[in-house]
């Protein structure tokens, strides 16, 4: 009995040891970002390196924000993110309702195609879509980065919501139908209120994706006053390539909203990942 206990505690000790070691390894880059953002110029690339800034230069943050239109880019990004959240949650839930609770000819075939498109590599789509938006005169506007969100919100979000809607019992809707409620009313009064956790997951995914998107803004937004944080940071880096402390301060500010969101809603974010893999 004693032998077993000892074996068990050695095992637990090893697990804690390995996971603890790698936790430190995983946190170091983040720590390094914040630490660098607070360093005086002379300490940025010092050899040997310094773990902590001495003294911390909080003014770096003010300088970073002043050296490029940070707040403008912040609000541009916020605007795009809000529009995408609105479009994705609104239209993906409509479509998911159709796929889960309504019967129509071709439904299963189209759902099948939808699932297949979840795994299509984006590079095969981008050129014609770009040509289309160019011919519509939409390049250098926000439309190419917003309109697709209002066209169903993408296969993944539809799939995620459909899985959730299916778990809502049909009886709830049948009684409303007998009472003469329209499908839209059932959708709005019964399905949506029951689905807030799933809608929340879609919103979270959309926020993280839109906030971090680089390629879309890169090809569609040429006017610097329209840039998002991702593109704006790139411009900042090209201009101040040696000021790593200011760049890291701007980077930290860019990452901060997502880090806060993560600590508020990490379970929902992780759940989105597992749902996508088809695991309940």
């Amino acid at each position, binding site marked *: 009995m004693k032998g077993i206990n000892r074996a068990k505690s050695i095992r637990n000790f090893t697990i804690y040891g390995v996971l*603890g070691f*790698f936790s430190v390894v*995983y946190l170091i*880059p*983040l720590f*390094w*970002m914040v630490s*660098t953002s607070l360093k005086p110029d002379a300490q940025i*690339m*010092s050899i040997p*390196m310094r773990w902590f800034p001495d003294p911390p230069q909080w003014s770096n943050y003010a300088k970073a924000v002043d050296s490029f239109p940070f707040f403008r880019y912040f609000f541009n990004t916020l605007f795009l993110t809000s529009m995408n959240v609105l479009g994705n949650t609104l*239209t993906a839930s*409509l*479509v998911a309702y*159709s*796929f889960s609770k309504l*019967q*129509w000819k071709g439904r299963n075939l*189209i759902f*099948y195609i*939808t*699932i*297949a498109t979840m*795994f*299509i590599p984006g*590079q*095969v*789509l*981008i*050129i*014609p879509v*770009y040509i*289309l938006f160019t011919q519509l005169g939409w390049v250098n506007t926000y439309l190419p980065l917003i309109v*697709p969100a209002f066209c*169903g*919100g993408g296969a993944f979000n*539809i799939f995620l919501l459909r899985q959730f809607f*299916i778990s809502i019992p049909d009886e709830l809707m049948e009684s409303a139908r007998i009472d003469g409620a329209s*499908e839209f009313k059932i*959708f709005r009064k019964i399905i949506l209120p029951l689905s807030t956790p799933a809608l929340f997951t879609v919103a979270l995914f959309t926020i*993280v994706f839109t*906030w971090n998107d*680089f390629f879309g803004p890169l090809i569609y937004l040429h006017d610097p006053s329209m840039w998002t944080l*991702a593109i704006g940071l790139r411009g900042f880096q090209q201009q101040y390539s040696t000021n790593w402390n200011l*760049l*890291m301060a701007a*980077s*930290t500010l*860019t990452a901060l909203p*997502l*880090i806060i*969101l*993560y600590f508020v809603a*990490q379970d929902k*974010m992780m759940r989105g*990942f*597992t749902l996508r*893999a*088809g*695991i309940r």
Partner: protein
Amino acid sequence: MGRKRSKYFRRKNLAGYLFAAPWLIGLSAFVLAPILATLFLSFTSYDMINAPRWIGLTNYKILFTLDPGFWKALGNTFYYMFGSVFLKVFTGLIFALLLSSALKGMRIFRTIYFLPVVLPSIPVMFLWMMMFNPRSGLINQLLGFIGIKGPLWLNSPQWSKPAMILMSLWGIGGIIVIFLAGLQDVPEYLYEAAELDGANKLQMFWRITVPMIMPVIFFNTVTGLIAASQVFAESYIMTAGGPLESTTFVNLKIYLLAFKDVRMGYASAMSWVMFMILVPMTVLLFRISRRWMDY
């Protein structure tokens, strides 16, 4: 009666189509039509000023016989895809196994490992550029402490791709979380039965855990490969494709061809070849997609 029924079904159909309408538009305009349009464009020469000119297989001939840069980019992309995904799946599974042990505090570890997944990619790339600096970067200074002279990382044609793969491992959290959920789905009684039969931990791992989570391993591998095939910003931001084109990936080439040189036809041919390479993987994944159709 019959007419009433058909009217009922017509109305039902109509509601279905109306609710699905946004996606019927989105699916056709932003997915299905573009796939076909890319195929069509790949047989043309198109500069977005003059109308597309049909040139048959010329783009593909140039691609396969006269453009060594394409093969190089394809090789780089495969190197990155397989290197990054196999390492991520392998280490991700190990982490998930450790995290699934019913010990206290596992939640905290999970939180830490997943955190980099939500960080914005461009700031993360700047951060790693700084850490990869051969002389003053954090990584080589730490290696120096234990007496290892670190490589030139992003400045070296041999080490630039391994550096990017190393960076991609920071984003392993998504895979870990999926594995964790997969491991939870393995029914406990299988292990109990095996224990009664006197199986040891290693046997249980190979005979129960691995077969039961095979679909999850497969999912992580294939979606990982498809995602990694789209590697672009890493080279655009961190290396501009260098040094010596060692990080020129297919998508960087497509980007430069389409959006800098405006050679839409040739860029489309390249996209289509890459798509054809990835299609078998997508189809394989789709084959096991009963998982997605069920429940």
